[in-house]
């Protein structure tokens, strides 16, 4: 509670001292829904994205038109649910031995909820477009207010406090004088273990609507100070993009066994013009990569055979990344009709899971059973936190309306190195042979909309 008090005093001082400053100060309220996204799972079972409430107050302090600082107080409830299946061994019909009887199986749901009071602190980077785009990253400290759950083990109590990272992206629309409407999406990932027993961490995504009052500070004439947005910048524009990733496994070990996996790719880029044809692009995007496996294997998630494979698997292993590219872009052709770009990228892992169907037989002395198992396993603990690689892209640019341009293109991404965490690979033969099991590769078809930025 000491940290909470310190933070509240800090917020109060910012608000109290703001009239003496010349920068813009904004206060706002938001409310919406969060979707729990637990981190660290590497076992069987599906963690559901359960909704929960989120609301909060914030103050935003702008150092200039682009850079700012935002903090506040946030209340949210994270609802977790894990769905799994278990095989019971205690019941056999009369006349059957245990080796004969194939079941029973039953499902088990583990439910828990955690209510937090959270103090975030984020650095804001704004793109002065209409609507204004805010990109934020920072840390948070959260205090557990209440919890209940069915899966805690005996005396293992959840941690009373959580610390972690928070990333957000929002759009602000002017509503009226001194009033803005906001849409915001946040990704929150904890760094304190949920309890002493499990290697799991809190996490969530939330989507909120809010209103912001921009008239806290006034200039000498008594009018509120906020950024004027009137003319279009010729040096900067935004690209909102979305598309489909076709990804595959380029690992060195048994890569011919894997096939394509398709997933979404969307995000935004900021384009800084360097010369008539050259520009620098960066931004963030959500990308799903991975692979499909349709073969005999001892593992649901990858090709692994010792003696006779136990399963026939038809699964898709997917890893979600927040991708940050650093690209050099060239507009070539008549009026820059075509573009090509290349550069490195960094991927921050958000989630990983394996979904699909598995078939297997059990055979004993005089018995045979065949099962179909639907799996939806959380693999986040099995995947490295980051992936780095290189991106090459290109396409065509089609002017649309007066101020917009539509980009149609493809880009190819290639990750460097193993994606699986070494400790996860159970037989370590890949480690000993120095062969990678899983490397990211993808081709993405994307449609982008270039949006001008106001000066």
């Amino acid at each position, binding site marked *: 509670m000491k940290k909470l008090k310190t933070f509240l005093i800090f917020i109060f001082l910012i608000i109290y001292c703001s009239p003496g400053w010349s920068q813009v100060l904004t206060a706002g309220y938001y409310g919406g829904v969060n979707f729990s996204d637990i981190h660290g799972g590497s076992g069987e079972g599906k963690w559901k994205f359960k909704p929960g409430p989120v609301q909060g107050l914030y103050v935003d302090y702008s150092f200039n038109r682009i850079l700012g600082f935002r903090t506040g107080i946030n209340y949210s409830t994270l609802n977790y649910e894990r769905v799994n299946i278990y095989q019971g061994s205690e019941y056999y019909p009369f006349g059957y031995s245990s080796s004969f009887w194939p079941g029973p199986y039953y499902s088990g749901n583990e439910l828990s909820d955690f209510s937090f009071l959270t103090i975030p602190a984020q650095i804001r980077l704004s793109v002065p477009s209409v609507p204004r785009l805010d990109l934020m990253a920072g840390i948070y400290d959260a205090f557990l207010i209440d919890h209940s759950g069915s899966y805690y083990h005996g005396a293992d109590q959840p941690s009373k406090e959580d610390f972690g990272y928070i990333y957000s992206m929002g759009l602000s629309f002017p509503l009226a004088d001194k009033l803005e409407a906001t849409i915001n999406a946040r990704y929150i990932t904890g760094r304190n273990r949920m309890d002493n027993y499990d290697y799991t961490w809190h996490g969530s995504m939330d989507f909120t609507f809010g209103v912001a009052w921009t008239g806290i500070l006034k200039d000498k004439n008594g009018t509120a100070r906020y950024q004027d947005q009137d003319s279009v910048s010729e040096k900067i524009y935004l690209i909102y993009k979305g598309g489909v990733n076709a990804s595959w496994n380029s690992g060195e070990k048994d890569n011919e066994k894997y096939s394509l996996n398709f997933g979404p790719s969307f995000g935004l880029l900021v384009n800084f013009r360097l010369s008539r044809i050259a520009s620098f692009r960066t931004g963030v995007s959500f990308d799903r990569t991975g692979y499909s496996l349709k073969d005999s294997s001892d593992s649901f998630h990858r090709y692994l055979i010792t003696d006779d494979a136990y399963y026939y698997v038809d699964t898709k292993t997917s890893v979600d990344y927040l991708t940050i590219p650093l690209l050099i872009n060239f507009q070539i052709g008549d009026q820059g009709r075509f573009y090509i770009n290349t550069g490195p990228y960094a991927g921050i892992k958000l989630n990983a899971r394996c979904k699909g169907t598995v078939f297997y037989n059990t055979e004993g002395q*005089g018995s045979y059973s065949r099962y179909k198992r639907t799996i939806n396993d959380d693999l986040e603990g099995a995947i490295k936190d980051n992936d780095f690689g290189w991106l090459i892209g290109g396409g065509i640019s089609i002017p*649309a309306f007066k101020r917009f341009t539509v980009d*149609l293109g493809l880009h190819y991404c290639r990750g460097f190195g193993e994606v699986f965490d070494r400790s996860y690979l159970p037989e370590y033969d890949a480690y000993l042979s120095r062969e990678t099991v899983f490397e990211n590769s993808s081709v993405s078809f994307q449609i982008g909309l270039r949006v001008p930025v106001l000066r």
Partner: protein
Amino acid sequence: MLILKIKNKIATKGIKRSQILIMAAILFFVPFCGPDPSIELLESYSFSFENDQDQRLNPGESINVVLRIFDNKEPVPAPFKIIFDVIEGRGSVSRETILTVNSDSVTTTWTLGTNSLDHRLRALVYKPNGDYLTSTDLTAITLRENAWDAVSTDPDGNITGMVADTVAGVTLMVTNSKVYKQGSKYYLWERVTDPNLESPRTIEIDSKGTIYVSTWKGDLVKSTNHGVSWQKCTKPYPDNPYYIYMYVANDDYIWVFKFEYPTVFSSDGGSTWQTVGSNLSSNGFGDVFRLKSGTLLFHGSNCCSLNRSDDNGLTWTHIVTPGYSHKLYVNDREEIFICNQDGGFTIFKSTDIGATFRRLFSCYPQFGTTMDNIFNKWKDTYYILVPGYGILKSDDLEHYEIYWVNNELNNLFIDHNGVLIAKDWNNNTVYYRKNSL
């Protein structure tokens, strides 16, 4: 052309930012949807023989084999191709391949081979298209004449005592705290039950055919009708709730031993008990023989404890024996035989009631242990078990030949037909040998 079409589309219809947001949201959420984990049983079958496993039969006998088919999911079993394959014992089957159609069992006749102890029939189950599903085995054993055949199954794997009445043609054994009577074949056993037969431990027989059983609760039970009915004797130690050592001597006296209790005997079939003197119980439990003169000879389980009593057990006199003696046997000619540990195992003989001893035979067993049932006689031939070495054979106890070397043997019994039944040290295996030559 494509570019132009897209351009026209955008120009005519337009794209709203809200549409982009909705599309992005759909793209974001749809991939997170997925079915919950579940398991579905697609098919499940079980196949089992109705016949008992490890049936004991004579070589060449046949078994009517019935294989039951269970479909654990559907009321009517699916069709299968079942192949019966004799994989051990060189027997044969009347129907090797059977195609089933909605039937819940198949049958065949299995004729056992003649030159093997172990026999195994395997039923291999395939789908009609040839996909292998599973297999199950049926086993049998045939016990041959003039050969040692090992059996490691209940009930005889752990025999602790056996008596044979050659006059009545009855053999009973105690194994796993139960009494069994030999059945129609020498390797078949039938459980003997009686309310008085509670936790049997050892079994003895006297010259009149009365069978005595001592129990783990310290009781003595007897049968005078070859095991048909049983009566409790007077308890040798009324306050003792635990097991006793019981021995029936050649004069039909019943001797009972118990650590920390005085040794007692009964001359009236267990009705009354008399305590022996000279602290005989300090020598442990053992063998007692009465000579024609009335003299009693006793050797306990403790080393070098040969004693004689000339007053019907009231007082005892120690007799010096060669080496570390452990076992006493007296034959019909009242010659005394002592087994000791010289060189491993040595048999000595005395013809002057222990005044002098003469070495007869020596061998070196793998291990030394208590000598429970060493001297066995069938007709005019002695079979002497040396634990950890094997079985010796002698017609006069003067000359010995090695009958069977088996370092794992621990005990030996002979049934009322002369079938030798040797017990392995592992308490799980017995060896049968029926001699016809």
